[in-house]
């Protein structure tokens, strides 16, 4: 009964996460928000690379598009972020569709496709840096209200509210991935990832299936971007579309295990906690340790690639007796 065991563990984890804000202090909640946010993004990226085998190194593009769509609509018209998420997701899916179309129609594959995704992220960053309607290079600041009561509709409130929102979003994206992986589309994606020619010979319209992966991954990532905008309240094109964000959001999936359901979550938690630890340590030593988090990420990535290429999760799943499960 491997499946029953996995479900029980998942429920246990969910209960622990639901109770966390009652047990921990504000600092713990803020770290967990970061963990869940990174897990959410890693899972969304994993759809494209882990499931369908299409490498994107420019996923900050969709974070930024979502953040600016949700942020600007709220700033100018007071539009609730939940509507901003729909708009942001639609814009990101469209842009992802354009990139996918260019790449897949004209046979831009592998590394060259990844370069295409970077190019789009970079020129969109420069575009938004000069886009005065959303603040240009001086940034976009979302109006902050008194933080002693929570407004879930407008996402204005205390950290605990944001915590439950990102927990809900992460749970939703997990369930979406779980459902799709066992569906016809999930089989198509994994077949394309393993061997595209064989997939096509078995009747799979590879163009359509890859487009679906890019557009869904982009749309879900943009929803995370809207959350980011409302949580941080400040948006700069420099950081929203930053290359290092694109890299960081895929590290979790790589370290945890690409193509698995739990890998991206586990990897994102490990990385975020490590980053937080290193930053705190560096603060205790005063200045001069600016890049310590990035160095830590680099080292852990090196170790993973050298020792456990498939990521941490597959081995851990075996230890926990969950390896019989189809999706893990």
């Amino acid at each position, binding site marked *: 009964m491997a499946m029953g065991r996995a479900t029980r563990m998942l429920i246990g984890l969910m209960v622990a996460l639901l109770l966390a804000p009652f047990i921990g202090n504000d600092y713990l909640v803020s770290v967990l928000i970061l963990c869940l946010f990174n897990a959410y993004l890693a899972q969304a990226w994993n759809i494209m690379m882990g499931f369908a085998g299409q490498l994107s190194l420019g996923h900050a593009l969709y974070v930024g598009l979502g953040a600016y769509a949700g942020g600007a609509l709220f700033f100018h018209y007071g539009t609730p972020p939940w509507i901003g998420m729909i708009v942001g997701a639609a814009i990101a899916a469209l842009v992802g569709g354009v990139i996918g179309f260019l790449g897949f129609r004209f046979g831009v594959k592998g590394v060259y496709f990844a370069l295409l995704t970077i190019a789009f992220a970079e020129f969109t960053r420069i575009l938004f840096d000069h886009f005065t309607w959303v603040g240009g290079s001086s940034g976009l600041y979302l109006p902050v209200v008194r933080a002693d009561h929570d407004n879930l509709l407008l996402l204005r409130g205390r950290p605990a509210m944001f915590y439950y929102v990102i927990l809900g979003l992460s749970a939703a994206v997990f369930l979406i991935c779980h459902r799709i992986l066992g569906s016809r589309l999930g089989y*198509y994606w994994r077949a394309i990832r393993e061997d595209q*020619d*064989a997939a096509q010979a078995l009747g799979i319209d590879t163009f359509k299936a890859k487009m679906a992966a890019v557009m869904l991954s982009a749309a879900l990532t943009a929803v995370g971007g809207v959350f980011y905008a409302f949580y941080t309240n400040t948006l700069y094109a420099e950081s929203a579309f930053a290359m290092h964000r694109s890299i960081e959001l895929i590290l979790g999936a790589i370290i945890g295990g690409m193509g698995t359901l739990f890998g991206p979550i586990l990897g994102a938690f490990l990385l975020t906690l490590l980053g937080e630890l290193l930053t705190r340590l560096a603060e205790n030593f005063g200045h001069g340790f600016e890049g310590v988090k990035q160095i830590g990420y680099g080292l852990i990535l090196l170790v993973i690639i050298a020792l456990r290429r498939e990521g941490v999760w597959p081995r851990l799943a075996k230890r926990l007796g969950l390896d019989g499960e189809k999706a893990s």
Partner: protein
Amino acid sequence: MSALLAVDGISKSFRGLKAASAVSFELDAGAILGLIGPNGAGKTTVFNMIAGVFPPDEGRVRMDGRDITGKRPDQICRAGIGRTFQIVKPFGGLTVRENVIVGALASCKTVADAEREADRVLDLLGLADKARQPAHALTLPDRKCLEVARALATRPKLLLLDEVMAGLRPTETDRMVAIFRQLNRESGLTILLIEHVMRAVMALAQRIVVLNTGEVIATGTPEEIAADQKVRDCYLGEEAA
């Protein structure tokens, strides 16, 4: 009665070099046709034009009366043609069963139906006890078998086999031949096979087309082909007689 597959004067050049030149043949429903010839004769080129890997420069390919010339491989599959690859292409990270499910999804409405169809095909090909293994762990004969299983799961009317016996031991070849005979007899599966292993071709094919330097040089029953002087000169050699 019109043929299931009609190949009508297809040609292909690569950088000015004629790989196939006005190749024509027909295949009736329920028939088994062998395509043989020395290395570089254009067998794989002809095969790839039928399977939609690349379009012919000239000529048409018709399946069931419908023109399928220049269609994509996935459209060819949906037109009722399944294929195997000479260099096997398993989905290595998926289990054997999942590999076959992917094929079965082409012929089934739901994933549950595809799972049942996959189990049926795995039983048929004797792969059922390896269903849960990852495909990359299979031996070469089993991988060849998996190629066939995946293609069969799409429920083709016509199965294209690209050197599926190459690298198999004689006993394994005989087992494969028996399976194809059974499929042909019981479900009327039409088969086009490219094959170097003459033991298999002679045992399976009712008719044989011989290619040399891109052209059809002989067509006939296995006995006629074995007796044909041109074929013996360029390909079979004297020991085949």
